[in-house]
């Protein structure tokens, strides 16, 4: 039987948790996988009051209208992906998606479970921006990319969503599951000159 203990995160084969225990404290940045997040893509009309309040009621977050920004409740984050597209991210086990789907049943909106579609690689520390700059054309300078900003781009030719979580700086890099190992391999290579530690983000 494929019990839950057999669930594999996208980077499970790399045994990152075991490597995290041997962390190097002098590292220029840390990298780790935040797996098994609940994620839903939500499509709808931002101008529809029912839709906006449904999102607010279910997630506790205002629907972000400003492009490339994130509204967070501490538990759930809502990322702006497009004028009619958002990504709701919650810890494993959340039922926010089905509840939102239910709340939107009378309006033209869609909630699609994409929890398994992407994993999150967390980059944190002094050289996190340098590593991103090696493979992504966006400007991550502190003057132009700030906490709770997000953006979609390519990193090393792979589609990613980048969400800056803190000033540390700490970035959540969402990558499609099938690309995750390739991205990790690229990140290890890019981070090598700064020294990196494997983290076990929660």
């Amino acid at each position, binding site marked *: 039987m494929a019990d839950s203990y057999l669930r594999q995160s996208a980077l499970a084969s790399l045994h990152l948790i075991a490597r995290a225990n041997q962390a190097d404290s002098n590292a220029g940045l840390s990298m780790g996988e935040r797996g098994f997040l609940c994620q839903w893509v939500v499509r709808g009309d931002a101008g529809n009051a029912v839709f906006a309040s449904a999102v607010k009621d279910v997630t506790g977050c205002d629907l972000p209208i400003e492009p490339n920004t994130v509204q967070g409740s501490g538990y759930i984050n809502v990322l702006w992906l497009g004028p009619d597209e958002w990504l709701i991210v919650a810890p494993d086990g959340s039922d926010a998606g089905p509840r939102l789907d239910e709340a939107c049943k009378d309006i033209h909106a*869609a909630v*699609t479970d994409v929890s398994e579609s992407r994993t999150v690689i967390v980059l944190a520390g002094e050289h996190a921006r340098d590593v991103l700059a090696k493979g992504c*054309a966006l400007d991550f*300078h502190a003057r132009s990319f700030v906490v709770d900003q997000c953006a979609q781009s390519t990193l090393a030719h792979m589609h990613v969503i980048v969400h800056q979580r803190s000033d540390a700086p700490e970035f959540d890099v969402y990558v499609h599951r099938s690309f995750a190992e390739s991205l990790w391999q690229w990140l290890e290579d*890019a981070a090598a000159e700064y020294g990196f530690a494997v983290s076990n983000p929660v």
Partner: protein
Amino acid sequence: MTRQANRLGTDLVAGARIDRSKSIWFTFNGRRYEGHEGDTLASALVANDVQLVARSFKYHRPRGFFGAGAEDPCVMVQVGVGAETLPNLRATQVELYDGLVADSVNAWPSVNHDVGIVNDLMSRLLPAGFYYKTFMWPASWWTTYEHVIRNAAGMGVAPKQPDPDTYDHMHIHCDVLIVGGGPSGLAAALAAGRTGARVIIVDEQSEMGGSILASRLLVDDKPGAEWLASALAELGAMEEVRVMPRTTAFGHYDHNHMGLLERRTDHLGPGHDIARQRMWKVRAGQVIHAGGAIERSLVFAGNDRPGVMLASAAATYVNRWAARPGQKTVIFTNNDSAYGVAADLADAGISVQAIVDLRVEPGAAALEEASARNIEVLTASCVVETRGKRAVEGVTVMKLNDAGDGVVVGERRFDCGLVAVSGGWSPAVHLHCHAGGKVDYDEIQGCFVPGKTLEAARSVGAANGQLDLADCLTAGWQAGTNAAADTGFRKPGKVPKGPTATAVEVSPPRHVWIIPAKPGEENKVKRFVDLQNDVTDADVRLAAREGYRSVEHLKRYTTLGMGTDQGKTSNIPGLGILAAELEKSLPDVGTTTFRPPYTAITMGAIAGRYTGQMLEPVRRSPMHHWHENHGAAFEDVGQWKRPWYYPQDGEDMHAAVARECLAARNAIGILDATTLGKIDIQGPDASEFLNRIYTNAWSKLAVGRCRYGLMLSEDGMVMDDGVTSCISDNRYLMTTTSGNAASVMGWLEEWLQTEWPDLKVWCNSISEYWATLTISGPFARDLLAELCSDIDVSNDGLPFMSWREGTVAGAPARVFRISFTGEVSFEINVPASHGLGLWQALMTAGEKYGITPYGTEAMHVLRAEKGYIIVGQETDGTMTPYDLDMDWIVSKKKPDFIGKRSLGRADFLRDDRKQLVGLFTEDPLEVLPEGAQIVDDPNAPIPMPMIGHVTSSYLSANLGRSIALAVVKGGINRKGETVHLPLENGRTVRAEITGMVFYDPQGERLNG
């Protein structure tokens, strides 16, 4: 030989940028020499009195150092050995490191005894365009000619081994990007940096400073070096300013995108574990071009002899590296700048025999500098010849007539080993022009200066035609201030003053594009315009007479301005000569196009880390490592790695595929089908949307049912296919082919957003959400039933083309009863994180049934046995549904769908279109090559009329014979006829046209 015989002592040159206490040993053409830290290969060779360092490209004439930096056209060297070696580096730009090994290129067996010099003796037979004139007949011999010519004219040697170094890329953004770290650029950086703007200043040389490094100029009444140190200290302390030496801005692209190449370890030699070179991709708010100007030569007889050198280069060797390029010199100039060089050389103890000036009236300040050092100035004069064997030993000078096209009788002879030439200055407009900037002609300076630009960019200083230091500093400061302001940065408070220098009055230059030779020798002498490509004034004039009047044609025909230096010193003189020959003005002739890169960049830097294993991202399914651990051979499908077949116990591909195919029909085959595209389609208009996207009807598909669909593009050609299932009211799951997942998603969004915004439909990709495991074969149902208790998997409970939601091996699952094999088949979809667990569970429980994993090759064979098409294999963008014999899937009732209108075109209804059929070869074991051409009459004369080709071909283990799918003109109505396939090896194979379904034509197994 004396070590560094030509190194000037500190008594003569005090401020050189070398560390005399640090010796560096290097090898050039097999001999060891000593240099100092701070030297380039060129400066160290000059210091060691090595004068003959290269051979020219075409005539193999001796060449010496002509420039001191990026402008040098002559001295290409091969640096490093083995895999590390880099060909065709400019010796003037190679920084010395201990143990450096360099060799001349384009010389065999050695630079001192080059057999290619025979080309020089034959030079009358090698005029401009000799390629095009000489080697034309017979045409079939060209490849032989070319091989020999390329070897003779070849430059350095590319290493045969893989490059051991790494290279990488970095993206960066800034408010102000300054190209050039000379006085103008530094002034601009200080001004912009003080506002707090994000500033990047780059310079291609090992240190910032530009002309300050090579001169004795005063800035702010201080020695230039002192000012430079304080400016760099200030810039270094600014948090948002990045100072980048050893960094070439090689291309300026649209929207202020700039390419930089940073050489990180080249100056240290091999053996470093960081990237050797880094390509920076900059996006700048404002760009300031401050790349300086390049000195031009004069086109006079014997001007290519080693010892003839740009005046600025001579000054640079002396001032920057304390390297003496000659003991006695004659200066030959058309402008005032060379007088400063004369002064620098004289003060360094070099005997300046004379300044030969084309002009009647040199500038007063210039004349003063000469007379202060008792240097004779010969006005209205020119050098009519140089003397010497391998290098200059002396020159002859005559008076120039008023028109500048002849000389006046009476000559003076001087002995000298160095002729320092200045033909005026050309701003480095290259980068300005890359991004579409125009140039204007400056009559007085005889050069092109930056004109209009399309970019948020400005050119300053010598790069803008300003040759006076005071002007450069002022312009740089102003540009830095303005560029920062244009990006929103202003320094609050009083506007501070920028750095200053004393302005110097100069007289204008005199432009004589061809310097006359001695009377009677006009046709005997060689006057070089382009020293790298051996283009003389006679070549340019000949080309013009032969009709190559466009400057772009002239370039290709004569090779003027081609090669690694791209005519940095030669273009303007060449244009001047062409203009005179055509009796046009120089600006009317125009310039050739300036294209990136400014100087050559390595392929490694362009590739960056995207090489070898990281060439392209790899997509892996959740079961990838299981496949790997079980010996799968992989096939690339787009970026996916898909198991191709699983060889066991020394099986070859044929045996493995046969075993896998038999298992899928006789036991259970299991396939990883995760790569299929999956799109969640929701909304009240979803079924109407599907009606318009697919050729068949979707309105009546019930929840829990699946349907195969064919998608056409507007031109009526088959674009994609797949099974779409109704998930709930107004919700569908569409599957696409693996390779088209992203493009179909884009296609759907495009129609929704641009053509049908009224349709209430949302599409979201869920390809990555699901792991898809397909089990197929007579025992597939038994296996599924064992692992799944909440779905009735019987034929009644889960009939063909239906799906149910439930739990398989403990994982939440959607089970689809669809088939690409013709067997009873279940496509089990589970969240990707359960994929591996389910795969293992199926393998374990399926063992007793003989479950066998099969790869894409067996999948292809199995589907071909059933005549199922693969879009992209049976179709090529020119196949309609009718051509595929799939009329049944095209709805006659729907008012419209994409491609419907095209399907009605007369051409689509022709009965001789290429149509998909099956082929049985006469010999059942003959496997046709895919792509083999089909003919009716194998004895027809060539070119034989071809009536089709093979699209898929396999040996079918289940049928015990070969099968093929093919397209044949009018094939649907030709079943039973025999066609012929002439193969590459000369054999012709006979085959019978058949239907497409080779196996279980009644579909009994599928519905069982």
